[in-house]
């Protein structure tokens, strides 16, 4: 018992670190740990970032709930210890513990990671190390957990492939039960036998067993009949997204050419308003949260949005709940929708035009016109919001000076529209360096080198002649390292391990990211980072992710690339099939009747 004098040495550790409630568990909705039945497959979901970030990730709330419904499995969690906690654990020789049972992570049958973004990879090694699990699959022994990874990064798995026993490519709602059942059926058998059995499941990629055909991504076809969580773990302390989160649809039909998520999560599968409403009502009762976020890649596109607003109307009016949308489409329709949700216009709205000119937006197939932007800004300020935040990218293929200047024009327009409506009209711009991603039409492009990115960022930032506008751009060094890993191969695993050994942690956090250290590591290992980030790929080269089939064909990506280079747009596939590769391969509405 933690209360008794001197009873638990971990108390001393908790007393010595910042925000100890990151590591104490006991949250409402967590556990209980299923009875110590040796027959259960025990999974520890491990998130490669700190508690406040990991607890905001809906994926684990879903998978945790799902795993607990399986009679042959149980789930617990662990998050990446902050550097001060890592030090305290290491210096006291304390093994990393899971939050529910507080048992060592090494005692679990499965440790499950999610590969959300490239700069979180070193954190995976932190967790493995503090759990006492060997980094490399080939060095793991009987008794070591099976290390599994899913998420978008599983579609470009090679940089992490030596460290992961089993990649799950596709929807966890489908793969997790199959994987855990297979492991359960082989209880008592060797680790190798279990992993071999898993390799036979469609959508599973085991790096140590070279697949003889591409690994096909698995999808949940009908979201209304697949598991959805009726409970959530409610943190005791503040987290990044502190609210109920509900997924309203998967996939996206817009076809923005830079967007990996939109490409790899096809086809669109919508949930019905009835199902979402029932889920939200149950979650409100079970959790005590007051705010609900409707999540997807483009929630304003959800065809059931109007219906949901009708159903929640009374509750919204009485301020019983607050609905939030993660992002707004750039048009008046979305702004009007947002206005319906928020009676008080607090703060501002956020839009992502992504590029400053129509031509550039056509190249990236961001279906937003100049008129749309103007209409969105009009609606924003006429409804009473005071500020806007705008997201743009720089370093896009075919980018020219006019495209960057176009960002200024949009900002100036925002300020003048705000002025006309007598709003404060503060405009803040976040400018990100474009990173070409695997499985997109731009996967062959050269990423702009960091010096040029910095030049362009500076130009945009320093040449705005409007004191209402503030512009910041992402650290080009972080963009560069992201670019190295985004289209990397297995050789980079050595760099991840070496960088970790030299102290790299929490690379997504600018306070910890150490660019010089990464470059030194690459140099010492004889790895040329430019050849990963900045090199243009030839169209017939074999790419390190070609053995993973996202469902979208290479032919489609090449066609889209061609169209991009001449600024030709592709319609939203809700308006008509563009033959991306899913047509005829799924029963999903819109793709099946082609």
């Amino acid at each position, binding site marked *: 018992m933690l209360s008794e004098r001197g009873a638990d040495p971990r108390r001393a550790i908790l007393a010595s670190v910042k925000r100890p*409630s990151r590591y104490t568990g006991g949250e*409402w909705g967590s556990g209980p740990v299923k009875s110590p039945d040796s027959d259960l497959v025990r999974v520890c979901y491990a998130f490669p970032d700190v508690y406040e970030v990991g607890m905001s990730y809906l994926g684990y709330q879903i998978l945790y709930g799902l795993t607990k419904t399986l009679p042959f499995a149980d789930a617990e969690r662990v998050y990446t210890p902050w550097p001060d906690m890592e030090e305290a654990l290491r210096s006291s020789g304390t093994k990393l513990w899971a939050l529910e049972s507080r048992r060592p992570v090494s005692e679990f049958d499965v440790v499950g990671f999610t590969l959300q973004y490239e700069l979180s990879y070193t954190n995976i090694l932190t967790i493995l190390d503090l759990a006492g699990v060997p980094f490399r699959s080939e060095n793991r022994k009987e008794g070591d957990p099976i290390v599994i990874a899913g998420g978008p990064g599983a579609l470009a798995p090679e940089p992490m492939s030596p460290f992961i026993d089993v990649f799950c490519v596709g929807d966890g709602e489908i793969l997790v039960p199959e994987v855990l059942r297979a492991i359960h059926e082989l209880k008592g058998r060797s680790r190798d036998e279990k992993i071999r059995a898993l390799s036979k499941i469609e959508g599973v990629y085991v790096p140590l067993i070279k697949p003889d055909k591409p690994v096909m991504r698995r999808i949940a076809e009908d979201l209304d009949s697949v598991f959805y969580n009726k409970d959530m773990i409610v943190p005791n302390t503040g987290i990044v997204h502190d609210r109920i989160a509900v997924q309203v649809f998967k996939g996206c039909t817009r076809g923005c050419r830079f967007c990996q998520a939109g490409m790899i999560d096809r086809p669109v599968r919508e949930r019905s308003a009835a199902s979402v409403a029932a889920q939200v009502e149950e979650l409100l009762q079970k959790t005590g949260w007051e705010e609900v976020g409707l999540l997807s890649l483009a929630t304003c596109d959800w065809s059931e949005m109007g219906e949901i607003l009708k159903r929640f109307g009374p509750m919204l009016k009485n301020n019983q709940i607050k609905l939030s949308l993660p992002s707004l489409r750039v048009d008046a329709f979305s702004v009007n929708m947002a206005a319906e949700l928020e009676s008080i216009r607090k703060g501002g709205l956020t839009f992502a035009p992504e590029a400053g000119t129509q031509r550039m937006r056509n190249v990236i197939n961001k279906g937003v016109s100049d008129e749309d932007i103007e209409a969105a800004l009009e609606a924003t300020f006429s409804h009473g919001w005071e500020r806007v935040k705008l997201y743009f990218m720089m370093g896009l293929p075919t980018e020219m000076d006019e495209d960057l200047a176009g960002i200024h024009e949009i900002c100036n327009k925002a300020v003048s529209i705000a002025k006309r409506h007598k709003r404060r009209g503060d405009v803040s711009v976040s400018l990100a360096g474009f990173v070409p991603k695997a499985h997109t039409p731009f996967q062959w492009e050269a990423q702009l080198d960091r010096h040029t990115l910095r030049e362009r960022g500076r130009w945009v930032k320093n040449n705005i002649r409007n004191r209402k506008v503030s512009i910041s751009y992402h650290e080009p060094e972080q963009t560069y390292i992201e670019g190295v890993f985004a289209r990397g191969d297995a050789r980079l695993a050595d760099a991840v391990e070496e960088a970790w050994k030299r102290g790299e942690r929490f690379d997504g956090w600018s306070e910890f990211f150490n660019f010089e250290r990464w470059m030194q590591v690459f140099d010492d290992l004889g790895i040329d980072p430019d050849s990963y980030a900045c090199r243009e790929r030839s169209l017939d080269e074999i790419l390190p992710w070609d053995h993973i089939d996202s469902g979208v064909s290479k032919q489609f990506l090449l066609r889209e690339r061609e169209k991009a280079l001449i600024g030709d747009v592709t319609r939203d596939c809700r308006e008509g099939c563009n033959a991306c590769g899913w047509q005829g391969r799924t029963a999903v509405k819109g793709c099946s009747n082609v």
Partner: protein
Amino acid sequence: MFRIRIIFEKKGWITFLNHLDLPVLFSRAARRAGLSQEFTQGFSPHPHISLGPALAAGVEGVQEPADFWFNEWDDSCAVRWNDKLPEGIQILKHAEVEGPSLSKLATAAIYRISGVGFELGSDALETLQKEIARTGILYEASIDKGYAVLTVGDLEHCGAGNLVRSLKEEGICEGWKDLHLIRECVGTWDAETGTILPLI
């Protein structure tokens, strides 16, 4: 409108929860229990709550006070609320109250402090007495079964953090990690009787 004072305990792993996280914790549990809290007016309405004096993270709370304002309240509410609280937090007593604010009433507290794996002796007691007298008000001090037991006032200026630091500076301990701290109770100091009057 009902102003309900609760006396609750905070034990086990949840002692490491920040004091300022308590309002949200209690409010969410209240919502889960179907209770209806009164909200403050203004730009950012939130449930009307008045916390007791700050209980530092890592310190066990045996009888901690807090006031909550509800739109409705009946006998079943506390039981339902307790049922929805996370592990380590339990409401022990509750009552409808009126009168001065909790911060005006919570003028004294009893702390019990011991070492983890070692007892505190008279030198520790002396150090603590000096520290309390420096920053707050010392009413009583004694050693009881290896624990320093201190009755202190002026809680705003004299908290667990100061006490730990003073022991550390005297070399009696290394810091928070080798001390066990408990706040036994919080109440109103009654100079006449020389005791702490309970808040309920």
